């Protein structure tokens, strides 16, 4: 809150670079190495309490804290946007505790912490995505017991997942999962890609960027290394397909990005805009340049 300068200085020296102590960061990095070695496997880790509430990105923050170096450039997005309140809060947290440079430009960032989206701008080698994960276990809503689900993963026993998807088709004619759509990583582990819309799932496949996933409350982390096969579960006669809109972005005119729906008047009129604010801004700027 309103810290006076004196207490602000005391606070700054009371905490380590990027908040967590070095031993904790080493523990997390060891966990990450294991996660990268076994793509899609959920590694238990000694998750720490963070000064933000569980469910607000503590897992992602711990991973970011563990991998952040002084030269990194950090971007934080929530729902694709840099200016949503929780993204602002997390970005400020690292600006304050680590003093790292921050950016809103996807291409400039070396580490991107995200909640619920993958940027539309293609990622490049050397970039690291850190995902905030609420429930890391893709089988959780089918089998509530952790003992059971760990055994199912060990035995590659994923039949129930396909049964669930099949039941969707039998009931609705479609697989009724629109986000947190399960994927198979490197032909082995079924993984929850975090609650990104299934629109973003194809971006995980063979991505040149490193993908790290952190679940703070559940104390699990997992990873998809660069250039790893990530396949969304489907059936031959019901192939995986992503969302499409008939509309395009009201700002930049994009018909290829994930659109957020806005209700703009009391009559319920709708407009659609890009959920990825950086992508939208780049396109809008380019359009304006071309006009001049």
């Amino acid at each position: 809150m309103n810290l006076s300068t004196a207490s602000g200085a005391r606070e700054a020296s009371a905490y380590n670079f990027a908040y967590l102590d070095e031993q904790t960061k080493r523990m997390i990095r060891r966990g990450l190495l294991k996660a990268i070695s076994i793509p899609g496997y959920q590694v238990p880790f000694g998750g720490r309490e963070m000064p933000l509430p569980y469910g607000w990105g503590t897992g992602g923050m711990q991973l970011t804290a563990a991998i952040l170096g002084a030269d990194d450039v950090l971007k934080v997005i929530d729902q694709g946007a840099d200016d949503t309140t929780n993204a602002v809060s997390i970005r400020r947290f690292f600006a304050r505790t680590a003093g790292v440079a921050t950016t809103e430009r996807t291409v400039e960032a070396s580490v991107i912490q995200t909640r619920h989206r993958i940027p539309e701008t293609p990622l490049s080698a050397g970039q690291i995505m850190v995902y905030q994960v609420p429930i890391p276990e893709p089988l959780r809503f089918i089998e509530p017991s952790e003992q059971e689900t760990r055994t199912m993963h060990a035995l590659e026993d994923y039949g129930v997942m396909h049964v669930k998807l099949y039941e969707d088709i039998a009931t609705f004619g479609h697989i009724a999962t629109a986000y947190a759509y399960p994927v198979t990583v490197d032909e082995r582990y079924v993984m929850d890609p975090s609650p990104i819309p299934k629109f973003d799932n194809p971006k995980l496949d063979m991505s040149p960027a490193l993908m790290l996933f952190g679940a703070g409350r559940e104390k699990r982390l997992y990873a998809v290394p660069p250039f790893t096969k990530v396949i969304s579960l489907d059936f031959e006669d019901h192939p995986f397909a992503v969302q499409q809109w008939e509309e395009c972005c009201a700002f930049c005119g994009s018909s290829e990005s994930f659109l957020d729906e806005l209700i703009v008047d009391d009559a319920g009129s709708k407009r659609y805009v890009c959920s990825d604010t950086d992508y939208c801004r780049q396109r809008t700027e380019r359009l304006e340049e071309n006009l001049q």
Partner: protein
Amino acid sequence: MYVAVKGGERAIDNAHQLLASRRRGDSAVAELGVEQVRQQLPLAVARVMSEGSLYDEELAALAIKQAAGDLMEAIFLLRAYRTTLPRFGASEPLDSTKMQLERRISATFKDLPGGQLLGPTFDYTHRLLDFALLAEGDYPAPESAVIDEPKACPRVLDFLAEEGLMAREMDDGVPVPDITREPLAFPAKRAERLQALARGDEGFLLALGYSTQRGYGRNHPFAGEIRIGDVEVWMTPAELGFAVPLGDIEITECEMVNQFVGESPEQAQFTRGYGLAFGYAERKAMGMALVDRALRAGEYGEEVQGPAQEEEFVLMHCDNVEAAGFVSHLKLPHYVDFQAELELIRKLRRQAPAEENR
């Protein structure tokens, strides 16, 4: 348009200032001192220390003040501070038989060595608002005998154990895992369970304990003993090789005597549930003892009939910092997921025009 998310940075700053002013209240009224909270709200301080897993009355009082009296928020503040502290060792096990007793009751024996000591308790008070408290004044303590050196006071359950009627708890000598450093794995050890319960939410444990009394996993409890008082903490630093006292802490300990088990009638023994909390926290300790016993269903080959007996259910949901965090995250924007759901539900409805008019 898009105002809802623009200006997040300024909005956060303003919200923090509004919160600070809300906490302060009317500035014509004297500000609440941390020491006042510590002295005059000791039961709130005890709860925050227990569930915050940090014995520090001053910091707990500060957290309560900062949280404007929201105890869960205060617990969270204390936890987020505790997590940054270095861990340099573990104390020797507390010896609660050498406690400086403030209160000690047993519901199983009318009289017993060490006696019954009521101490400061809400029990037997009539819950009538005391309007005298609206005015300020002195509240002199009753006359009480000067307490000399603490005398060792044996535990009730040890009498039963000596007679062979109560299973003894054995120290298996294995180092105690620290659930704040290592993630819980299932099935958990009892040491891990007890740690999780000690940090667990008082209300949640109370309700689960209550559910066992109402038949969801009955375990026939008797309050064998509840004792509250100060106990010395000893620690053996590696470089010294012998134990030194670190100071006193106030604790509440509850041992329940529960239904008996045994291969045969001759071997029948009572079982026990154990509860421990920092400070004066009787309700918490009792709830914890009931749930501890319920969670031993597997150990005693009992059928699991209620949620209080399900280890994963209890341990994964008893932490109020985790629970409050995850519930409150629903306030964060979910536009993207919701948009995905909207798109799906519209698609489903478009495809089934015949069913639409039903």
